[in-house]
């Protein structure tokens, strides 16, 4: 069971207080009608399947009911950081590959 640091509650909480909400930093296109079917399909359906660094969104459902982001290693489940919506991650794939 993961132990996640909620950046809003400012402390570590057990995984069962959270909902996993998939890949982070997917921005809704400003003008969906101007997108081709392929572009819209990419936004709708296609997600990374990273082995290693993954930026993902979690929801503190049994807590402050805030969404936030997590940088997690999908192999080791190590969590490098959690950060608020709108913030940029400090740990990214490039740094990790050294």
């Amino acid at each position, binding site marked *: 069971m993961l132990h996640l640091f909620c950046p*809003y*509650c*400012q*402390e570590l*909480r*057990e995984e*069962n*207080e959270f909902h996993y909400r998939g890949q982070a930093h997917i921005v809704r296109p400003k003008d969906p009608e101007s997108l081709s079917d392929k572009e819209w399909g990419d936004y709708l359906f296609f997600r990374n399947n990273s082995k290693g660094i993954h930026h993902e969104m979690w929801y503190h*459902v*049994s*807590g*402050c*009911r*805030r969404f936030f982001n997590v940088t997690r290693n999908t192999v080791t489940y190590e969590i490098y950081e959690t950060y608020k919506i709108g913030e940029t991650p400090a740990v990214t794939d490039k740094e990790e590959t050294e």
Partner: protein
Amino acid sequence: MSDLTTFEFAARAQNTQGATRRETPLHHVSHQNAEAAAVVFNEVPFCAQLTLRGSPENPDFLAGVEKVLGFALPVQPLTSHASDSYYVFWISPGEWLILAENIEPAVIEASLRAELTGHFAVVDVSAGQTLMTLSGEAVQQVLQKSCGYDVEASLPVGKVVTTTFAKATLVLHHQAEGKYFLIVRRSFADYVWRWLVDASAEYGLTVV
């Protein structure tokens, strides 16, 4: 105008002397399974409970609320403040739960709306949740059976957390040494109560 509206309400008298009747979610509860019970339970009936939303970065909002409550909103995560009239719990950034035992929710809501301008929200949730208190020698053990949160070391007096309790979610507040507030959504109150009865069985439970 239709004649229906002039229809006399004959059944009115069947209300106990015209009065209405209110019930808390756990009004039916009574329990005593031990002489010297190590877990003590109480449901505090009919507290006013209001959700207050607004920006902690908005000085007008903070000032307006302070004027009504008589103290500043606790803006640090997981903190609370209590006065003679109110408890206020931080719930989320920009969200607080106001609790009062002796003031009508409509009165609190009206005072807040009178003072506040701009972007804010006040929602009466008084009947939507209930306040339980839990204390006694074995309160720590019962909470450890129920909550994954580190109640023993991470919840000093005054702190408030929203967390899981068995498979429910509630607001847990360490109100005084060895005494906890559990604020539970109405529809989950019975489940939480039955869980507490079960978890307390080995220590003894009494309702006051």
